C-alpha cells in the first residue's frame, strides 16, 4: 500500500454518501432545485440522477415550503427524503413546515410516524457569495425542539454524518460549510465512528478550549498553530453535532482547561456560542477561570463580499480572545 493517502473533497464525500444511501436503501429519495439533471449548483448530487433515475433523484419547482411539505407526506408513505435547500437563506420559506411539522410530527403521532427527513444545505459564508448566500441559520434550527442539526468540517465527517442523518428516524438538518466544499481530506469513507451528538477534540491542548464547527474549525486550528508558537497550548473542539450538543465533552474540556472561547460565523446574539456558554456555566462553573469569550460574526446582516473578511472571525480575533482568557 502506498504511503500517500488519497484525498477527496467534501463535495465528493457528500456525493458518495448520497450515492451509497440511494444504493443501500430503495426508499431513499433525493430531490430539490437543480439536484437532478445538473447535479446541483455545487455538484453535490452530480451523476446521481443518471445512476438512479429520475424517480429517485429529481428536480423540483422553486417551492421550498412545498418541497419540505412533500417530504412530510412522503414520510407518511414510507419514503426517506433527502432534500436540498439551494442555499442557507433559501431554507427560510420552509421554516413553517420545518418547525410545525417536520420537527413535531413524531410527537404528534405518539411515535407512530417517523420523519426520516434530511434537509441539506450549503451554509455559512466565506466564499464571497451574493447576498442571502452566506447565512448561518443554525440558531433557527437548534432552538427548534424535534430537530437534529449537524455540521461536518471534514470530508470523512461529511460522509458519515450525512449517512447517519439519512438513516436517522428523526429529521436532521445538515449544514454543509460551503467554504470547505473543495478542501480535501482523508478519503476513507465509513459510517463507523462518532454518531450524531458527539463532538470531537481535533487538537489537544491544556491552556484553553476553543469550541467551534463548520468552516471555522480550520481557522481555529490555524489560530491554535499560531498560539503554539507563543507556547500557548490550545485545545480545539469541533462540535459537529449542534443539536443535540455534546454537553459532556464540552464540560469535560472546560474542567480540564479552565478556559473557553466559542467561535462561529453567526451573529453573536443568540448564536450557538450563547448556548455553549450557558452550558459551560451550568456544568463546569467551578472550573471556569475566565469568562467564556465569543468570537463570532457581528450583530449585523451578513455583509457584501468586499467586507466579508472583516465580518468572519479571523485567526487574529480568535487568537486575541484566547490570549485574553489565558491571561485572565
Amino acid at each position: 500500500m502506498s504511503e500517500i493517502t488519497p484525498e477527496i473533497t467534501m463535495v465528493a464525500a457528500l456525493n458518495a454518501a448520497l450515492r451509497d444511501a440511494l444504493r443501500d436503501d430503495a426508499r431513499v429519495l433525493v430531490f430539490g432545485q437543480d439536484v437532478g439533471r445538473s447535479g446541483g449548483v455545487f455538484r453535490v448530487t452530480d451523476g446521481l440522477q443518471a445512476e438512479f433515475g429520475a424517480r429517485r433523484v429529481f428536480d423540483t419547482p422553486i417551492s421550498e415550503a412545498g418541497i419540505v411539505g412533500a417530504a412530510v407526506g412522503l414520510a407518511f408513505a414510507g419514503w426517506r427524503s433527502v432534500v436540498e435547500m439551494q442555499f442557507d437563506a433559501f431554507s427560510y420559506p420552509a421554516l413553517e413546515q420545518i418547525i410545525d411539522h417536520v420537527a413535531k410530527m413524531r410527537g404528534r403521532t405518539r411515535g407512530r410516524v417517523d420523519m426520516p427527513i434530511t434537509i441539506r444545505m450549503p451554509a455559512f459564508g466565506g466564499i464571497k457569495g451574493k447576498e442571502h448566500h452566506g447565512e448561518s441559520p443554525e440558531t433557527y434550527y437548534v432552538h427548534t425542539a424535534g430537530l437534529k442539526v449537524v455540521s461536518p468540517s471534514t470530508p470523512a465527517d461529511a460522509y458519515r454524518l450525512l449517512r447517519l442523518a439519512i438513516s436517522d428516524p428523526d429529521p436532521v438538518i445538515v449544514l454543509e460549510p460551503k467554504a470547505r466544499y473543495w478542501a480535501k481530506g482523508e478519503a476513507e469513507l465509513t459510517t463507523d465512528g462518532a454518531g450524531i451528538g458527539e463532538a470531537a477534540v481535533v487538537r489537544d491542548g491544556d491552556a484553553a478550549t476553543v469550541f467551534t464547527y463548520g468552516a471555522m474549525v480550520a481557522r481555529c486550528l490555524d489560530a491554535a498553530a499560531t498560539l503554539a508558537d507563543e507556547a500557548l497550548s490550545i485545545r480545539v473542539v469541533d462540535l459537529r453535532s449542534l443539536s443535540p450538543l455534546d454537553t459532556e465533552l464540552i464540560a469535560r474540556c472546560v474542567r480540564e482547561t479552565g478556559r473557553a472561547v466559542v467561535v462561529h460565523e453567526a451573529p453573536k446574539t443568540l448564536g450557538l456560542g450563547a448556548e455553549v456558554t450557558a452550558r459551560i456555566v451550568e456544568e463546569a462553573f467551578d472550573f471556569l477561570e475566565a469568562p467564556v469569550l465569543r468570537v463570532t460574526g457581528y450583530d449585523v446582516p451578513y455583509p457584501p463580499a468586499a467586507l466579508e473578511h472583516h465580518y468572519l472571525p479571523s485567526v487574529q480575533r480568535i487568537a486575541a480572545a484566547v490570549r485574553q482568557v489565558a491571561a485572565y
Partner: protein
Amino acid sequence: MLSAFDEGDSRGIRVASEPEHWRGTEPVRVLAPDGTAAGDTDVGLGPDELRAMLRYMLLARRLDRECIALQRQGELTIYPGFEGQEAAQIGSAMALGADDFVFPTFRELAAALVRGVDAVQYLAYHRGTWHGGPYDPMATRFAPICIPVATQIAHGVGYAMGLALDETRACSLAYFGDGSASEGDFHEAANLAGVFKAPVILFCQNNGWAISVPTASQTAGEIWKRAGGYGFPGVRVDGNDVLAVYRATREAADRAYAGEGPTLIEAMTYRIGAHSTADDAGRYRDDDEVERARSFDPIARYRTWLTAEGHVDDELLREWHAEIEDQVLAIREGVIAQPAPPVEWMFDWVYADAPPAIAEQRREVLGV
C-alpha cells in the same frame, strides 16, 4: 375603485337568497336545494350506501352539537364546529377507498367518522390531551389534525407522489378552506401536484368565511378556476349536495387512480356556526344571512330525496335517531372519562431516542 379598502363592500347588497359566495359560476348539482333531482341521480351507490351517507350526516350533526355542549361544559377546550358542511365532508370521504389517505384541517370530524377514526380519540385533540393525531393516522389513513392552514396540502401531495412512485393504485385527498387557499402553501402544493401529476384531490370547502373574513375579501377570483393555471381540472360543486360532492370526488379519485393527476374541487357550502366556540360570529355576520343559508341545509335536502326515492322512511329515521343518541352518549362519556396524559408523554416521542438534555429534563419533571 371598488376594492377591499372600501367600507361599503358588497356584503351589504344581498338580493338572492343563496349565500353570497356561491354566486359566479354555477356549481355542479345532482339535487336541487328542495331535494328534487337536478341531474342524473345515479352516482353509482346502492341503497345501503345511500342510506349510510344520510346516517353519517345525522350522526355528524348530532355529534357536532354535542361537542359544542361539551365545550360549554368545560370538557373540551375550543371546538370548531362544522354544522352545514356535512355533505361536503361526508360526500367526499365516502368516495374514497380504504387505501386512500386523507389530510384534514381542524374541522373534518365528519370526514373522520367516515374514515373510521375513533371519535373519542379524535376529540382528545379538542380536549387538550394530545396534539396532532391522538388516533393512529396510519390505521385509518387519516392524518393528524392540522391547524397551520394550508400546510397539510403539501403533505397530501407528497403522499400522492409516494403512491405514484410505488405505483400504488390509490390517491390522497387534502381538505382546506376558502381562507386557507390564500396561503402560499396552497399554491406550492397545487403546482407541485401538477408537475408530478400526483394522484391527489385538492378539496376546498368554501364555507363563505375564514373566521370573520368573507370569501369576497379573501380572493377576487373563484378558487376552482385556479386549477387551470396549474394544468389540471378544477370543478365547482354544490357542497351542500352530498350526491354531487360524492360524484365529483369519485371522478377525481378515478382520474387519480388512472394516473391522470390531480383535481381541484371547490365545494360551495356554508359555515352555519361561529368559527369556533371561542368566536362570536354576531360581531361580523348578520343572523339573517345564517337563516337564509339554513334553507340550503344539506341534510334536509338529501333526506327529502332519499325519502321520496323510498330509501328511508320515518320509522328508519326514528330507529337511527335512537341509535345515534346512544352513540353520541357513549362518545360523550368516553371524552369525559379521558384523563390528562402522564406528564412524561411530553418527552417521550420528541425523538426516537431522547438526547441527554431531554432525558435529563424528563427525569427532573418526574422527580427521579
